[in-house]
């Protein structure tokens, strides 16, 4: 993962992802991609729509969790899955951009929640990284 990406790491009861991004926005995009892969979310054919978003939180960890919660909410309640994410971060507290959402065809696993457990967005030479634990 020289620039961005994610990998599943061991956690006894739940799921954990180590995520790398070139900046906070890329970290959020990579984390969502990893979470959707873990959940086995697949888009259906059908009309897509673009929705914009803006989040302001107290810190980078708050932004990351809030963003992933928004994606989860889309899966569970609105039955939509992002197929494209164009995100920009402003400092460590603000995320904005838009998502292209497709109808959800299939969701293999349920994720109850995104946790703050031991969550720290830390700088790396290529950007930043974080390890996120999901309650499943």
């Amino acid at each position, binding site marked *: 993962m020289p620039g961005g990406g994610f990998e599943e790491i061991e956690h*006894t009861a739940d*799921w954990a992802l180590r995520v790398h991004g070139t900046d906070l926005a890329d970290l959020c995009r990579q984390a969502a991609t990893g979470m959707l892969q873990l959940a086995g979310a697949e888009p259906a054919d059908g009309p897509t729509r673009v929705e914009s978003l803006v989040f302001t939180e107290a810190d980078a960890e708050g932004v990351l969790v809030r963003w992933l919660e928004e994606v989860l909410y889309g899966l569970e309640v609105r039955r939509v899955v992002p197929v494209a994410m164009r995100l920009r971060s402003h400092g460590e507290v603000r995320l904005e951009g838009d998502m292209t959402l497709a109808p959800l065809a299939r969701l293999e*696993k349920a994720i109850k929640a995104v*946790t*703050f457990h031991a*969550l720290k967005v830390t700088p790396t030479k290529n950007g930043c990284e974080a390890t996120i634990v999901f309650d499943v």
Partner: protein
Amino acid sequence: MIQKQDILRRGPWTWEIPASHRSDMRVPVRLFADERLLEDALGDASLEQAVNASTLPGLVSHVTVMPDVHQGYGFPIGGVAATLLPDGIISPGAIGYDINCGVRLLASRVPIAKAQPHLRTLASALYANCPSGVGVKGSVPLTTKELDRVCREGARWAKRSGYAQEGDLEATEEDGAIDGADPESVSARAKERGRPQLGTLGAGNHFIEVDVVDQIFHKDAARAMGLEEGCLVIQIHCGSRGFGHQVCSDYVHDFHGAAARYGIRLPDRELVCAPLSSPEGGRYQAAMGSAANYAFANRQILAHHVRRSFEQALGGKGSDTGLHQVYDIAHNMGKVEVHQVDGRPTRVCVHRKGATRAFGPGFEGLPPRYRPLGQPVLVPGSMGTASWVLLGTAGSMELSFGSTCHGAGRRMSRHQAKRTVRGDRLRQQLEEAGIIVIAGSLPGLAEEAPKAYKDVDAVVEVVSQVGIAAKVARLRPVAVIKG
């Protein structure tokens, strides 16, 4: 990571991490385990998380760690912590996202010999009648106003709506409804998630299981519970679905601000908390109560569907198919209770996350038939292995704030389980062992493989030897329904 040399042996099954281990610990951590289970606990971050939990403001006595402990997020699964009223804290992360996740046990007088030819029909009926799986919707249409009533009334709402029988509510912790629940403290988003999911099992480690009473250890208690050796019983394991998950998520966010306002420093953000007496703490208790009541109603509706299934599969086959409720108990909850602290009765908020209330004989909140014996405790094992019915004891009141274990406890990660177990092969192995399995997801089945869990018999042996529960009956599975 905690090392074995950091732990003092206090008895044959009792271990302690002293409060001197780390400068921010307020109380010691006490673990109940045999040597093997201790090694398991040392194998992940469970005990580190228990040490983190021991730093919460207002804790009394010690943080208790059960033998089925495993790593969670913030607070270990299998942890118990009591905080003093009014200034101690309440922590949503120390209760968990699946608020009032719990177990209900229904018992029959149908002998396995008579039921055996119809077990597959029963399993199919359970799968058809009890909505399960990812994203499944229930069959209970609810307006937001009606959902608010569910939040206030819990299983009482279910009874009023025709989903309960006489005797169900009194055989439910808190009679199936927590006082002080207030849906005004619940977000619109939580209600949106919860409204279509009432009466659903969900996925993950939740299940409905048909068992046979395999062995009875306490004849009087088994008689009081209506458990007969060789007869069928049914367990329902689930919680408050997306409603509870969202309540917890909302308050974990809110409490970040509260913790800062009250000057609470924490080693892990997932332990965020607020004083019980604060407006924030009060709002969370009202919201948590709402989610707990949602879960009681949820299991009550599922019990109704289980009874329908039982009648469909076994009715008219020459046995009394009536299923009576043995008990319903939570294992993710925060509750204000009175316990002896330094020899004085003291009001504390007991956080149980992956731990079961286990009140001893004489507890007024029990139905009269259980009062002289103690509270029934339901301990499901891993899929394909035994489950247990226990009793709360005087020992649990002295040693663990009236709490005991809640299950087998994981020892292998889901990732590792998926790598080493194939769902289709596992189902075949279980079928060969005489256990019918109906599962919505084969990868999900693999994650719940028996080898991913500890030995539930060893867990129960520890709590029995320590004296924080007493054995009543061992159950053997014959059919499992998973989402």
